[in-house]
């Protein structure tokens, strides 16, 4: 310490404060610098995290919009809206899918990822791909084939769920990181503060020690000097030291006293530096996005400290809130939320656990904000609750996004609301109305107040409650019902017919019925009117038919009697002209013979015609008796008969064995005789002639055919074939009156069948007929 003896006392005295001030200054600078650095780094990390959480939220929102589009398409399609209404949604869906893809790519490529994030992102890739595929395929399929489309929509719902789960994990990861960043920010701020404190104390100690040493170095010579010095040293420092102008030790002492006085002033400066470092800490807190606070555990939440974020968050400067100066924080909280917060905080305090709250506040400019708060109790060493500390941030944006999602759902509901058809959602179990649309009100007269929360059975809207039971049964069995027709009673009591399509819809895991009903009452009325009209028409037709039947009968009777009555004079003409030839033949010349022959042959032809007319009339008048008939045997006997009549003809009959039917034996014999003799006749020129009979099937009904290889006819004249007295061939070629096929047709008609022919000139003809087995 010898060298110190040479140092003047005034210097020795200055040494300690200089050291002290310098140390504190350096410390303050270091503290401010360190805090600023820290602040910047943490801030950037936090900002990063917030951006990422926001991106993940955007991503989730977008995928929800995609899924909502898929549903929307499915519902609009099930409402049978025109495709132009649906295509824009599909386009929007594909654009949104594309955006999803871009957002994902941005995360993957432009984010600086840590291992955890990378893992989570990779885990998203597969569900994202699947979801995109499913959404696109579902939307397209719904338009093409609704049933398969609905199945794909279900697939897309499942993959959507998986995507959301993966996204939640990513979001959790990011949120963990943000709370970790928050926590480490606080920890570091605390440790920095205490470090500064410890260092200050250390420096003070060192400074004090130095001062002590210096003082000792000074007091020893002072004690040895004078009593005055002691008096002065013990005296009031405020007094004016008059002797300080002196150049001796006393003068030095006097100046030293003056120095001590200044020293006290310097101490004040040091305290200010300390305060400055504290203020820097506050700035750090103030710059945080949100408000850090310390308050008492009191329902009014009197604030003991709030950070600068207070102004941005609440609109009040911190001073207004501190100690409830202008307003208590509790007054800012939405009245509905206050009690819940108090209870929540108390519960957390009891468990010595931090609390997290989401609630609304009203700011100074009367704006409502959603905030998120996290805080915890600060306890003293003996476990006494000293205060609450925590952090409050503004989450209005996020909430707004949630609201936006709700709105997009709203838009989706608009389609529901404004449909002219009646649409409602009710609980499957009891028909309790959850929602109805305007169409429902317009059609039924029931308002929302009349129906919501009330089971459909209570308002007796189903005229027949069994209909609802039927609906429920079908829905339970297959998930949807299409075009169920049922009667509904309207509010004013009148009943309409509705066409209902419905689907099962899960709301909060409870099956509900989404049903769309179209009022088809008018349609129904029109249909009934039509029905009535057609019934009347039928009656009219029947009356007319009855008239006709009578007229026909009369006509038949007339033609029978005419034919019958004509027969005897005709026989007279024939007989008398025959007699004339027999008895006076030799007196007549050639010419007269010819005339008489003509008279006779014309009379005979007329006789045949009358016979045929009689036959036809007889057929019409014949009482039908159906019985089993062996057609094969019948045809065989007719064929044998024909052969016998003209043994010179070479005709091969091919008759299928075992053909039987039900019919009138008399009539069928006539019909087959006509057909076979026709065939026999028209196959004349062909040798060997061949006639076939058999059974085939036409349109699932047995049909019978007679087929020959004769002259056939031109199909152009087929329409004339069955007309009475119509002939396709000259009588000179083939004898006959042309009534035969008319008779065949009558007989077949009377059996409820039909007859038709096919032919080719020179290659024969085929006649086919069917018989209705049972009238």
């Amino acid at each position, binding site marked *: 310490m010898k060298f110190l003896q040479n140092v003047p006392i005034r210097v020795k005295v200055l040494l300690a404060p200089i050291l002290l001030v310098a140390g504190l200054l350096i410390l303050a600078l270091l503290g401010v610098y360190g805090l600023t650095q820290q602040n910047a780094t943490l801030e950037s990390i936090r900002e990063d995290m917030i951006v990422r959480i926001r991106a993940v939220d955007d991503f989730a929102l977008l995928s929800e919009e995609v899924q909502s589009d898929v549903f929307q398409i499915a519902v609009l399609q099930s409402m049978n809206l025109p495709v132009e209404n649906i295509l824009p949604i599909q386009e929007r869906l594909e654009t949104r899918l594309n955006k999803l893809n871009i957002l994902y790519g941005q995360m993957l490529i432009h984010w600086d990822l840590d291992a955890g994030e990378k893992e989570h992102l990779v885990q998203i890739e597969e569900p994202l791909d699947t979801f995109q*595929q499913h959404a696109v*395929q579902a939307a397209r399929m719904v338009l093409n*084939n609704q049933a*398969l489309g609905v199945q794909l929509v279900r*697939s897309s719902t499942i993959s959507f769920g998986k995507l959301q789960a993966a996204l939640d994990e990513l979001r959790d990861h990011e949120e963990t990181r943000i709370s970790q960043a928050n926590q480490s920010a606080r920890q570091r701020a605390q440790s920095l503060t205490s470090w500064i404190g410890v260092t200050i104390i250390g420096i003070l100690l060192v400074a004090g020690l130095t001062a002590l040493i210096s003082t000792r170095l000074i007091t020893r010579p002072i004690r040895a000097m004078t009593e005055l010095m002691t008096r002065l040293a013990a005296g009031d420092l405020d007094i004016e030291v008059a002797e300080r102008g002196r150049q001796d030790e006393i003068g030095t002492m006097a100046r030293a006293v003056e120095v001590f006085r200044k020293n006290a002033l310097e101490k004040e400066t040091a305290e200010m530096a300390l305060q400055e470092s504290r203020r820097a800490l506050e700035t750090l807190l103030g710059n945080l996005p949100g408000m850090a606070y310390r308050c008492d555990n009191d329902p009014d939440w009197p604030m003991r400290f709030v950070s600068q974020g207070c102004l941005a968050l609440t609109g009040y400067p911190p001073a207004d809130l501190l100690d409830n100066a202008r307003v208590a924080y509790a007054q800012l909280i939405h009245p509905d939320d206050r009690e819940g917060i108090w209870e929540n905080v108390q519960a957390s305090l009891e468990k010595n656990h931090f609390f997290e709250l989401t609630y609304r506040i009203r700011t100074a400019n009367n704006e409502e904000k959603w905030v998120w708060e996290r805080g915890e109790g600060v306890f003293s060493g003996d476990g006494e609750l000293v205060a609450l500390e925590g952090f409050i941030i503004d989450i209005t944006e996020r909430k707004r996004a949630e609201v936006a999602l709700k709105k997009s759902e709203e838009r989706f509901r608009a389609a529901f609301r404004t449909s002219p058809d009646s649409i409602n959602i009710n609980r499957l179990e009891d028909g309790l109305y959850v929602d109805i649309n305007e169409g429902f009100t317009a059609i039924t007269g029931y308002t929302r107040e009349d129906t919501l929360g009330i089971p459909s059975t209570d308002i007796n809207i189903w005229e027949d409650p069994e209909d609802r039971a039927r609906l429920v049964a*079908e829905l339970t069995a297959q998930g949807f019902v299409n075009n169920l027709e049922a009667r509904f009673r309207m509010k004013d009591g009148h009943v309409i017919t509705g066409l209902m399509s419905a689907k099962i819809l899960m709301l909060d895991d409870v099956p509900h019925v989404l049903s769309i009903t179209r009022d088809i009452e008018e349609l129904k009325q029109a249909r009934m009117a039509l029905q009535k009209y057609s019934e009347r028409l039928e009656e009219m037709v029947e009356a007319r038919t009855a008239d006709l039947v009578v007229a026909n009968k009369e006509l038949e009777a007339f033609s029978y009697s005419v034919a019958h009555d004509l027969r005897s004079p005709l026989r007279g003409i024939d007989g008398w002209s025959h007699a004339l030839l027999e008895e006076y033949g030799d007196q007549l010349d050639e010419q007269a013979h010819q005339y008489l022959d003509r008279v006779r042959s014309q009379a005979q032809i007329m006789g045949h015609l009358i016979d045929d007319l009689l036959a036809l009339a007889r057929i019409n008048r014949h009482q039908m008796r159906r019985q089993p008939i062996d057609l094969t045997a019948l045809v065989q006997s007719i064929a044998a008969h024909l052969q016998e009549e003209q043994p010179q003809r070479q005709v091969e009959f091919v008759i299928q064995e075992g053909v039987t039917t039900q019919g009138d034996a008399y009539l069928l014999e006539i019909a087959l005789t006509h057909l076979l003799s026709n065939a026999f006749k028209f196959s004349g020129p062909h040798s060997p002639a061949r006639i076939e009979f058999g059974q085939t099937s036409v349109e699932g009904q047995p049909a019978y055919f007679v087929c020959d290889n004769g002259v056939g006819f031109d199909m152009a004249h087929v329409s004339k074939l069955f007309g009475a007295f119509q002939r396709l061939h000259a009588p000179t070629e083939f004898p006959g009156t042309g009534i035969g096929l008319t008779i065949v047709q009558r007989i077949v008609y009377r059996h409820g069948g039909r007859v038709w022919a096919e032919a080719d000139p020179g290659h024969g003809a085929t006649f086919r007929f069917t018989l209705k087995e049972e009238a």
Partner: protein
Amino acid sequence: MRMKRTIATLFSALVLLVFLVDCTAADKQRPDQPPVTPDFQTALATEVVESEAQPGGSLVITFGVGEPRHFNPALASGSATIIPGVQIFASPLRYDENWNPQPYLAKSWEVAEDGLSVTLHLVEGATFHDGEAITSEDVAFSIQIVQQYHPFKTMFAPVTGVDTPDPYTAIVRLSRPHPAILLAMSPPFLPILPKHIYGDGQDILTHPANLKPVGSGPFKFVSYEPGKRIILERYENYFIPGRPYLDRLEFWIDADPASQAVDLRRQVAHLAPDYINLPGLDYLREQDHLVIAPRGYEAIGPINWLAFNLLRQPLNDVRVRQAIAHAIDPDFILQYLHEGLSQRAPGPITPDSPFFEPDLPDYAYDLQKATQLLDEAGYPLQEDGVRFALTLDYIPITPSQQHDVATYIQHQLKEVGIVVQVRDSDSFPEWAKRIGDWDFDMTMDVVFNWGDPVIGVHRTYISDNIRRGVVWSNTQNYSNPRIDEILTQAAVELDFGKRKALYSEFQKIVTQELPVLWINVVPYRTIYHRGLGNPPLTIWGVHSPLDEVYWRQPPQKKFITPSAIADKTALDPVVRTGVRAIQLLQDQDFYTARQQLQDPTQDFLELGKSGRHVIGFTREGRVFLDNSGQLQAGMNISILLDMVGNPVLPILIESAQQAGTEAIHMDRFWPHPTTQQVGAISIWCGLLTREEIVCALAWDEAEGVGK
């Protein structure tokens, strides 16, 4: 090239010495060759020498580029016309994979020293498909038609006439030297048409022969079913002896990428040109018998870009355009949106071209720089965070190139305060009209280089091609006297080196001024069956005759014979239908079998009560057949759940493996194809091959819905 080189080629090589030497040298030195992908290597590995070539067989080409309006490439440049058109019509020259012209209908040719004429010596004895001789008259006629009607006016613009001193010599006279004249004689540009047919006085644009062409190329026209297929047959008197090797070409047209993929996978189709469905490539890559080649588009040089309308503010400010360039990350588009399959196109000339200039400014992705440029240009952020708003159009086809990139650009520009509205067009013509009428701010576009810059590049930058109403003209309204000067010079410069220097300057200037922001070369892929010899991988790829292609190893399908139960007379109509369908698919080619299965009179399809129909799908669930039309070909049913929530596919596969004698019965499994109701059905499934399953389904009426 694998063809024998004739003396004529050597001669032409002498004439074009500089061009060739420079060209090939440049080719080798080019630093940014497309990355050699695995499929590219296999493409090389499968190339074989001609000696192995064996004749016979037929090739099915599945075709996703739309419906051809006709088959006359003299009138149009669309791939749908060109790809069948170049098989039907021969051209004077063709090109190898190194940009060398090769003899084709011209066995040799000379370009005059002054560059003012080209003399073509035609192959003697060549005939059209109707047997008439191909003469110099036909060449003169064809050049005149292309000059008059083809949309690419620059190809033959300098031609003043064609002299025909004898039937086998045609001398093309030029008003000025024309460096692109030889390339313009390539198959896609100059089909040799029979004058005796097209010159009959009828309007060539509506000439009936455009749809029933009488050609000069390796394959002759047989039939065309619109929307379905085109059939061509080997022309037996083709002027190259022994060629073509294949007996028959079938083009299945207007196929969507998913059904193309399943047809390729099943080996019923063997070649897919111009394939661009990137998400579908993964599936095709899994198929060992397929090769996916990125080559064959070098001459086409398709560039995907973002174009600006320079008539409009603020896009008329180059700083704004540069800012937009900085705000867009081409790597994101190439690596992420295009899955690493696209090649970067930093400027107007494709990196595959010998004229490509690699040293171009790089607008690095830098949002700050973009912001700064926009501030400088006087468009600061407004209070609402927006600087200005723009619209962005796109071509409504090939979404990976157009729509997806447009959405990305919209997303990126928002970051720098530019609000972009992406405008949809319902159809290509609607888009083309907007752009032709200059009714746009920005648009995505795909424009082809078409081999020589004179043909495909000049048109969108030179100021005398600012023509309202014409899409793919200079619709950007870009005008720079220096550019006009360079391009005018390059259009008459025959010296390759000088031309290359001119184009270098051109590329450097336009990439500074950015009338267009070029993004990537459209990643077209040629997908072909590994069993094909001499796959089409020249610079023109499939847009060139396929007369060298042959079946080295024809595709073989190993059918599984339906076992003992495979009894067509089975009583259950479902089982009978299933077994009959499998036999039909094994006996007939797929196209014919499918036609029959869809024919309601053939008893495979009953859309009434039973809803009986047949579906076919691969083991992984790709549908290749549904005769009721309920499922589209290419759809993936592996994601389908039945109404109970079980996956449908495993049940069908298991049932096919068992292939019992009786149908299985399922409830709420499958909708009725017309009523779409879901009830009880019967299914019978069997294996067509190990990988392919065919099922017959029918609705069980008795147990139907009416419970």
